[in-house]
C-alpha cells in the first residue's frame, strides 16, 4: 500500500514538474519586458556559488537568513561575533562584527569585504586572486575608504568555527565528566548504567573492541584515551555542524590539519626501530628495488596523516555543499519561472532530506574511520613483524 502511494506520488510530482517546465516556453516572450521594466540592478540574480561558499567557509558571524523589505533592502538576521585585530601600527582592536553592518560600514579603520566593495576594488585594477582577497575577509582602510596596504595586522578573531568548536568542546567535556562521575559513584559498575551512560557506553565499548583492540594488540589500553577523544571530538563537531545555521567546523582544513598533525606525532612517537628499518632498509629486497621502494615508503609516512586530513575535510565539505546545492536548485529553477520553482521544490526538499540522513551516517562513519586509521597506523608503527600473530592472539 505504502509503495503504491509512493509510486503514485512520484508519477504525479514528475507530471506536474514536466508540465510546468514546458509551459513557460510559450510565456517566455513576456518575461524580458517585465524584467526590463524593473529597475536595473535592484534585484540581483541568485548567485548559487556565493551562497554555497558563504555557508561552507568560515565567517565573522552566525548568519541565519535575510529579511527582504518592500523596497528591496535586506536585513540579515544572525549572531555577531567578536573581532580581534592586532596591528603593530594601530594597536589592539576588539569589537563586535555587527559594527561592520555586513560590510556596509567601516569601523576603527577596518572593513569587512563584501561583494560590492570587492567590485569597487576590481574597478581600481586590483587583482583579487593575486592579493588573496575574498568576501568575508577584513582589510585595513584609510580615511577615504581606500584599501591601505601599508597597515599590517593579524586577524585573531573568534570566528564562527572557533566559537562553535569551543562550545562543542565544553559540551563534550561536560557530558564525559558527568558520565565519569556516575561510574565513580558505582552506577554501571555494580548496577545497570543509567541515563546518558546508556547512550555512550555502547559507543565506548565499540571503539575499544572494534578499533583499539584488533589494531593495537597488547598496548591498546595506552592508546584508548586518545582514540576515544579523537572519535568523540570529531563526532560531536560533525553532528553540531549538521544543525542548520551552524558553522562547518570539521569541513575546515585548519581543524582537520591540526587533528592530523596530532595523530602524526602520536604515530611517530610510538614507532619502533623495526618500523624505520622497514622504511629505510626493506629486508629481503634486491638493491635496485630498494632505490625505488625507499623513497615510496618514506613519502608514505607523510601521506598517511595527509590522507586522514583530506578525507575528513573533503567528506564534510562535500556533504555540506551537496545539501546547499540541492536547496539552491529551488531558487535556480524559480529564477527560470515561478511554476518550475514550485514544482521542483518538493523534489529538492526530498533529496535534501535523503542526503541529510546520509550525512548523519557519514558523521559517524568519518569519526570511526579517523579513529580506526589512526589506530591502524599506530599499530603498524610499533608492532612490526609480530603484528599479525599478536592481532590474532588478541581476538
Amino acid at each position: 500500500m505504502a509503495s503504491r502511494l509512493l509510486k503514485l506520488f512520484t508519477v504525479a510530482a514528475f507530471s506536474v514538474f514536466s508540465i510546468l517546465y514546458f509551459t513557460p516556453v510559450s510565456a517566455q516572450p513576456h518575461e524580458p519586458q517585465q524584467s526590463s521594466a524593473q529597475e536595473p540592478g535592484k534585484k540581483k540574480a541568485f548567485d548559487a556559488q556565493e551562497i554555497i561558499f558563504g555557508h561552507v567557509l568560515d565567517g565573522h558571524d552566525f548568519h541565519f537568513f535575510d529579511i527582504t523589505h518592500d523596497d528591496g533592502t535586506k536585513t540579515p538576521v544572525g549572531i555577531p561575533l567578536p573581532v580581534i585585530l592586532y596591528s603593530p601600527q594601530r594597536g589592539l582592536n576588539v569589537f563586535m562584527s555587527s559594527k561592520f553592518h555586513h560590510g556596509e560600514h567601516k569601523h576603527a579603520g577596518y572593513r569587512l569585504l563584501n561583494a560590492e566593495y570587492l567590485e569597487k576594488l576590481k574597478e581600481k585594477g586590483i587583482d583579487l586572486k593575486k592579493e588573496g582577497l575574498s568576501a568575508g575577509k577584513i582589510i585595513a582602510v584609510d580615511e577615504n575608504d581606500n584599501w591601505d596596504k601599508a597597515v599590517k595586522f593579524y586577524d585573531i578573531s573568534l570566528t564562527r568555527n572557533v566559537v562553535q568548536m569551543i562550545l562543542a568542546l565544553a559540551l563534550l567535556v561536560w557530558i564525559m565528566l558527568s558520565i565519569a562521575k556516575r561510574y565513580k559513584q558505582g552506577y554501571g559498575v555494580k548496577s545497570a548504567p543509567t541515563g546518558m551512560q546508556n547512550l555512550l557506553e555502547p559507543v565506548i565499548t565499540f571503539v575499544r573492541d572494534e578499533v583499539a583492540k584488533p589494531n593495537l594488540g597488547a598496548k591498546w589500553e595506552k592508546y584508548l584515551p586518545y582514540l576515544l577523544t579523537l572519535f568523540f571530538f570529531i563526532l560531536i563537531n560533525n553532528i553540531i555542524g549538521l544543525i542548520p545555521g551552524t558553522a562547518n567546523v570539521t569541513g575546515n582544513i585548519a581543524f582537520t590539519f591540526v587533528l592530523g598533525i596530532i595523530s602524526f606525532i602520536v604515530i611517530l612517537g610510538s614507532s619502533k626501530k623495526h618500523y624505520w628499518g622497514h622504511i629505510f632498509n626493506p629486508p629481503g629486497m634486491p638493491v635496485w628495488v630498494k632505490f625505488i621502494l625507499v623513497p615510496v615508503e618514506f613519502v608514505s609516512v607523510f601521506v598517511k596523516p595527509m590522507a586522514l586530513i583530506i578525507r575528513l575535510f573533503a567528506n564534510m565539505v562535500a556533504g555540506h555543499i551537496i545539501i546547499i546545492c540541492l536547496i539552491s536548485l529551488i531558487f535556480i529553477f524559480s529564477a527560470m519561472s515561478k511554476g518550475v520553482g514550485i514544482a521542483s521544490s518538493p523534489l529538492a526538499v526530498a533529496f535534501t532530506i535523503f542526503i541529510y540522513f546520509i550525512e548523519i551516517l557519514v558523521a559517524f562513519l568519518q569519526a570511526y574511520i579517523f579513529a580506526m586509521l589512526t589506530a591502524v597506523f599506530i599499530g603498524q608503527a610499533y608492532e612490526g613483524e609480530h603484528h599479525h600473530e599478536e592481532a590474532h592472539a588478541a581476538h
Partner: protein
Amino acid sequence: MVLLSDVANSNAGGAIGAGLAAMGAGIGVGQIGKGAVEAIARQPEALNDIRANMILTAALVEGAALFAIIVGLLAVL
C-alpha cells in the same frame, strides 16, 4: 599556459576531473560492495569482520576520489 589560465577551460577541467573521480570511486566502491556481499553470502558468521574491512576499504577508495574532487574544486575556484 594561456589555455590553462582561461577561466572557462579550468572550470570545464575541474568538472570533468570531478566526474572522472566519481566514476572511478563508483567502480571501486561497487567492487568492494560486490566482494563483501559475496563473502557474507558464503560466510554469514564472519559478518562483523567483513563489514569492518569493507567500510575501511571503501573509505580508502573514497579518500582517493575526494583528493581528485578537491583538486577539481581548486581548478574551478
